[in-house]
């Protein structure tokens, strides 16, 4: 356990070094969030009754989404891992006395967390001071906020373990391109990255909420502003735990199969 923790720490500290890149990222995400809110404001003006949650809750959702983008964005995958599979660098990693799944998991989690830590504070800070209802509102209650933190963490690890599936599958296909494109765009959409899940028609939404993708950003961002009731929250958290276990187990199993038949691609 200790070695994974130090591996995590190493990667995390490394990730914190990219401060200028983070600055550019903050500017981009800020503009992005602002434009998204303008769109939803226009729809709100067109037909306020058709809104599935309050406008203020929608703004909060969008700002939190931008602030914690690095935790959940499927396209922010670790290119070094793909490269090591393609060019054979994987051979060194396999020689180490560590479990490759756990190591990559730590590495990914650390990368994403470092990025998020660098970027979230300035965005949240500005969003809090924006005029109502365009800014980040206070959480619905202290309890909601606590649950928000828990589900944020859960959603984050579900995302990482789903990305692990994609890395591991690259062992079988060698070229990551196709899988990666397919999964990242599907994940982005089904997780509520394009439009929040409540905005889908009810029957579609009910189905989407059962999928592992809904266990990522969707739960935390909606709990924060209190747009889920008690049984809904209970169900969402249970599903998060279930998918975390299922996806991680599947990833570990695939990884064991892959390592047994791994072919080192030269290098």
């Amino acid at each position: 356990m200790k070695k994974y923790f130090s591996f995590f720490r190493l990667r995390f500290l490394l990730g914190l070094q990219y401060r200028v890149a983070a600055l550019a990222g903050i500017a981009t995400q800020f503009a992005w969030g602002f434009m998204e809110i303008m769109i939803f404001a226009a729809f709100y003006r067109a037909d306020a009754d058709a809104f599935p949650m309050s406008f203020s809750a929608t703004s909060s959702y969008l700002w939190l989404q931008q602030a914690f983008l690095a935790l959940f964005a499927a396209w922010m995958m670790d290119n070094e891992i793909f490269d090591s599979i393609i060019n054979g660098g994987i051979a060194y990693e396999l020689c180490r006395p560590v479990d490759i799944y756990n190591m990559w998991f730590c590495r990914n989690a650390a990368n994403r967390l470092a990025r998020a830590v660098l970027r979230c504070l300035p965005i949240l800070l500005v969003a809090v001071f924006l005029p109502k209802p365009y800014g980040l509102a206070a959480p619905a209650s202290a309890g909601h906020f606590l649950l928000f933190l828990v589900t944020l963490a859960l959603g984050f690890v579900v995302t990482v373990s789903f990305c692990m599936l994609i890395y591991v599958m690259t062992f079988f296909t060698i070229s990551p391109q196709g899988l990666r494109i397919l999964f990242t765009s599907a994940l982005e959409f089904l997780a509520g990255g394009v439009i929040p899940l409540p905005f889908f028609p009810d029957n579609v939404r009910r189905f989407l909420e059962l999928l592992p993708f809904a266990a990522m950003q969707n739960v935390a961002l909606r709990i924060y502003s209190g747009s889920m009731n008690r049984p809904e929250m209970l169900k969402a958290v249970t599903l998060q735990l279930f998918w975390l276990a299922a996806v991680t187990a599947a990833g570990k199993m695939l990884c064991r199969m892959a390592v047994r038949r791994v072919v080192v691609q030269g290098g």
Partner: protein
Amino acid sequence: MRSLSSAIRLYKHYISINIRSMMQYRTSFFLSAMGQFLVSFNVFLGIFFMFKRFSAVDGFSYSEVLLCYSIVLLEFSLAEMFVRGFDTFSGMVRTGEFDRVLVRPRNEILQVLGSKFELTRIGRMLQAVVMFIYGVARSGVAWTFPKILTVIFMLAGGTAVFSGLFIIYAALCFFTLDGLEFMNIFTDGAREFGKYPVGVYGEKMLLFATFFVPYALIQYYPLLFILGRRTAPFYILLPLAAFWFLIPALALWKLGVRHYTSSGS
């Protein structure tokens, strides 16, 4: 005149080399084209589901928004297909490849243009064309010659504006050596948010998109003319006015080239 025709011949040659080299990796080409398709398909699905819930936004219906988005997507993909060399220019500066460009007895803009030709954008264009046809069929626009002309001008002007943005992005690399991520707001962001007519984003954004980066000239105003909400004939020519944007872009590029000091390697 002779130098122009020789430049065109050279550019054609560049394109054919690019296409041939891309076709060596056929699977990779199809996967990238598919990826391009999927990314904008997500945006389309977003619009689709939003309009399941809402009937109109800012007075624009579903088919009208699709018409708008398809034209922006076509403009952007055309620009990206031809001017991709500028979009990936930071790599050229960092590796010192640009030194080699400068010592050749040819115009450097032509060479950078020819360095990349992204045929993979065809995936995105295909989708834009399908949406365009749907938008045309459903929005009930009475097509007249001036309106068709307006669409053609929009495509030309839009390609120019996005090309100008890519050139500015590249010119900034001379000063910073690396691509500036925030420029994505103006390129990818405009493609993403250009799905809705600029007027949706409010007065201030409309002013910005009219006088600063002329998105509205290639999207909002001519769209109003096509949909019959404005009838003054000068709306037809507005997209062509967007060509002014190339002037500061090229000026910045010239300044950058003069400022260029090799990064070595």
